[in-house]
């Protein structure tokens, strides 16, 4: 049903120039510099045609490397903890005894230490982080916004070992001399603040972890809050709400899932944090109720004892702790990402937020 019946005019001038044609399978040069066309055959020969697929293969190999890394991590962890897995089975995670000399290894104190220090950290970091995010996103004058977000970004860039250094020489004496005696005096009845105020211990680890985790919670919460559409805020304001009421009903309520995700990501980071915690937690593999007592976390025991470990069983037990830590952080992080994604709709991961 097309136009083939209509005559197509033929052009009579300019077509008879046989001198410019270069053969049946090539197009005649159209311009004055007839030499340009043959030179543009680059990339069309045998190797030229291979270059596109070859490039694709090379890029895919790089992409595969990411997968291979994950596979290697799992393999290394599982294979090197075989001995310990075999020897102790599930009881490994229920036993309190950590006795390298006798060859008895149980991971419970470390699991306890990791959980408690992380929970203390979250208890402090969540209100501060969310509050700071609310301030930056909703209340702060526009001029300050850039500076404030830059400084929270700086906080996230400080290495763990420097937090630890500062914690040992500044935070711990503060805790030992002022905070812990005060807590023991007024809140000792809760059984959470008993025993001598060493300074070093679970509370110190929780506080320094909180400082390290706040930037993550704060910057992610800020992303989530800014992702809430303007119409939601305007709808609440139009009903005559105060600014706080608008934030509470129009923004926070909508961003709930995302904020929860930010918190869980903060938890993920706290669980795996090593250096700062190792430097202030006291390194005692015992379970104690009081926050003033020394403790030990999964990451800390690996950091402290791995290079000194004598014997394959010892090493294997440490690797098994590493495997457990790996699995826990993957699950926690995966869950958190899902929550954050549902609110921000798949904004790609930011480089500094980890």
């Amino acid at each position, binding site marked *: *049903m*097309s*136009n*083939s019946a*209509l005559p*197509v*005019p*033929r*052009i009579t001038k*300019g*077509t008879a*120039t046989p001198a*410019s044609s270069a053969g*049946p*399978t*090539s*197009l*005649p*040069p*159209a*311009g*004055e*510099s007839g*030499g*340009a*066309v043959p*030179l*543009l*055959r*680059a*990339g*069309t020969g045998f190797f030229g*045609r291979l270059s596109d697929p070859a490039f694709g293969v090379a890029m895919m190999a790089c992409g595969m490397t990411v997968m291979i890394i994950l596979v290697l991590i799992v393999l290394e962890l599982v294979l090197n903890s075989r001995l310990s897995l075999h020897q102790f089975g599930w009881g490994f995670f229920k036993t309190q005894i950590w006795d390298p000399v006798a060859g008895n290894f149980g991971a419970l104190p470390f699991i306890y230490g990791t959980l408690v220090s992380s929970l203390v950290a979250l208890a402090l970091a969540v209100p501060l982080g969310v509050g700071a995010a609310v301030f930056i996103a909703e209340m702060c004058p526009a001029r300050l916004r850039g500076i404030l977000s830059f400084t929270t970004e700086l906080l996230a860039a400080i290495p763990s070992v420097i937090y630890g250094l500062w914690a040992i020489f500044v935070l711990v004496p503060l805790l030992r001399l002022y905070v812990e005696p005060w807590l023991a005096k007024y809140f000792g009845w809760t059984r959470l603040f008993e025993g001598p105020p060493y300074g070093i211990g679970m509370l110190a680890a929780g506080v320094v972890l909180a400082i390290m985790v706040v930037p993550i919670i704060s910057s992610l919460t800020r992303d989530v809050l800014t992702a809430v559409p303007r119409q939601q805020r305007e709808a609440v304001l139009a009903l005559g709400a105060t600014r706080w009421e608008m934030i509470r009903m129009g923004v926070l309520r909508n961003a709930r899932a995302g904020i929860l995700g930010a918190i869980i990501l903060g938890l993920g980071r706290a669980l795996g944090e090593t250096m700062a915690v190792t430097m202030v937690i006291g390194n005692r593999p015992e379970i104690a109720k009081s926050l003033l007592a020394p403790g030990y976390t999964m990451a800390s025991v690996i950091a402290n004892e791995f290079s000194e470990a004598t014997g394959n069983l010892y090493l294997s037990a440490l690797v098994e702790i590493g495997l457990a830590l790996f699995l826990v952080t993957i699950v926690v992080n995966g869950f958190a990402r899902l929550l954050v994604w549902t609110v921000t709709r798949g904004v790609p991961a930011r480089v500094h937020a980890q």
Partner: protein
Amino acid sequence: MGVGVEVRDLNAWFGQNQALHDITMSIAPNHATAIIGPSGCGKSTFIRCLNRMHETLPDTRVSGQVRIGDINVYGNGTPAVQIRRHVGMVFQKPNPFPTMSIYDNVAAGLKLNGFRNARRLDEIVERSLRMAALWDEVKDQLKKQSGASLSGGQQQRLCIARALAVEPNVLLMDEPASALDPISTGKVEDLIFQLKEKYTIVIVTHNMQQAARVAEFTGFFLLGRLIEFDKTEKIFTKPSEKRTEDYITGRFG
């Protein structure tokens, strides 16, 4: 000197949707042929099939035959890359390479295809910019000014110069002036008038007056089919098909 384009039974698909149905036409060498029709009728898809750009999008298919001069565009022997070096394309929204200078933009097609002679390159860049009527405006800032810092009309003329630098036989233009102001549009149309003498031009336009001003032949597309193809004068004064007449007189589209 000119090269014509023969299209036979061209069909094109986006996934399951057929965008072009059995297009057959002959595009005359050294003339401008306009492709008109309402939005979504397949005009852009059609010219993108002529230089095998349609297949760069995911999940697309083409069947039929296209010959540019002696070359079988969809033949087994010819790589798509080779075809595109002989067919220049100017897009609707000017798209100069943002991180390159004006000189590098014009030379990009040559340099990235293996051309090495620096002196000849200078000559070709100047010649292309002159042909695109941009030389006088940018000749002092060739290597210092970025392609993206020009005005919209200048950017489009830069893109035309870039396409001309590789000496194509056919020049495809997909609504080249639709994103430009009236003065720039006028300049681009003047350009097409001059370029016709050396190149075969196919221009997609939704502006019927433009087609009438610039092209000797016009094809009217509707819903993926070629309804009528004839001398522009005839299409606009005495069209053979009622649908063509309806579109020309503004009954739809």
